[in-house]
């Protein structure tokens, strides 16, 4: 099989691999790099469980080939907590507000919101809801996720 060489930065570390071009980015992260925090819920772009940051922007990991990430900077959920393992404010807000149940969708929401809260320090509820509308959660009914975003953007809830 013709493999191609890619090199990219994942969670602050330089990574180089020879891969099959058809390898999805999600599978690359999960199976080559053992970063299993990025989840796969549908592989057709609807559920958002696979959301990661590509050069700082939230994208679907399942709708990208790993080769397309050659040269890119990628951040996954594993990059969020501090060096000492301390939850970052967004993660902390999620646990404070009970924004996760099974937790399968959670990494996707966190990555979507990492970009969103950075770009929107003071969002309205409507904006928050619109921002997470590309991430499905089957457990929580979203209310507590919205609440966590309000907490982390220092709004009264």
């Amino acid at each position, binding site marked *: 099989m013709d493999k191609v060489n890619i090199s990219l930065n994942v969670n602050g570390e330089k990574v180089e691999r020879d891969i099959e071009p058809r390898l*999805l980015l999600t599978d690359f992260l999960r199976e080559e790099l053992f970063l299993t925090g990025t989840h796969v819920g549908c592989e*057709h772009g609807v559920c958002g469980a696979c959301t990661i940051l590509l050069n700082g922007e939230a994208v679907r990991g399942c709708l990208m080939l790993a080769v397309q990430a050659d040269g890119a900077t990628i951040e996954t959920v594993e990059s969020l907590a501090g060096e000492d393992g301390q939850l970052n404010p967004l993660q902390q807000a999620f646990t404070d507000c009970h924004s996760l149940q099974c937790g399968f969708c959670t990494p996707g929401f966190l990555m979507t919101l990492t970009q969103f809260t950075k770009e929107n320090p003071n969002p309205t509820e409507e904006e928050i809801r619109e921002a997470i509308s590309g991430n499905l959660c089957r457990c929580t009914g979203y209310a507590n996720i919205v609440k966590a975003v309000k907490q982390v953007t220092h709004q009264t809830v």
Partner: protein
Amino acid sequence: MKPSKFKYLKPSSVNEALTYLEEYADDCKIISGGQSLIPVLNMRLSTPEFLIDVSGIKELNYIREEDGYIAIGALTRHVEVENSLLIKEKCPLLIDAIKWVGHKQIRNRGTIGGSIAHGDPSAELPCVLTTLRGEIVIASVDEEEVVGPEDFFLTYLLTSLQTNQLVKEIRFPIMTQGERVGHSFVEVARRHGDFGLAIAAAVIELDNQGLIQKAQLAVGGVNPVPLIIEEAEELLIGKKVTEALLKEIAELTSECVDPEGDLHGSADYRRELIGTLLKRAIEEAIARAWEGEEKVG
């Protein structure tokens, strides 16, 4: 749901891409943002032998003003259009519409060229391009041509694009600026972010008396290709809108279109729905035209 094997080619210039396309025309697929193509590859509904990844062609990523139109390089991403101040000023209908394209994560990756080349009649951008009478620049190794949406979109997911051709640029005419011009983009979808059940776009210019001087109306999602509702445009000229006129337009629109039914809406439903939406788009465009008047006045 994993793609079948393909050989991967990554041109870094338009010329290189066109050369590859010429060479592998028999069994290749272009990928840009991959937001429509990768699901199809994952489901193995498409199993090309060669995948030509054009996403690295920097020269096709731009938004600029040229004579009378905004030229957008095919590889410009949705998010870049959404955030463009130039487009906000010169072609606001496009901004209104692009927010309806999927979700933020999709718009961060998906490209304008991909949206057009995909030829989905429910997609927002083809509808806007049709409404504004824009153009598409297509290139092959031998020639470059400029085509209008009416010649480009053939039917559901089929365009006039040949296998050796690349969409290079999309041209959106600059909308008339100033007072008494209003536009509207109306869409309804089952859920937020879904492809629309029906979409309608309207641009209306009023004269000093408040009579309609120019109208551009088009619909999507209810026909094999995006459709200009010409009769309605003509009907509006020189008039003030009334309930009766809007009703007539809604009915006439329903007659013009040829929707296909699916799980989310039957053909009959969509036919009726589009009349309602176009009516609403016209009303909103006119209301906004008056707002513009107030602001300027």
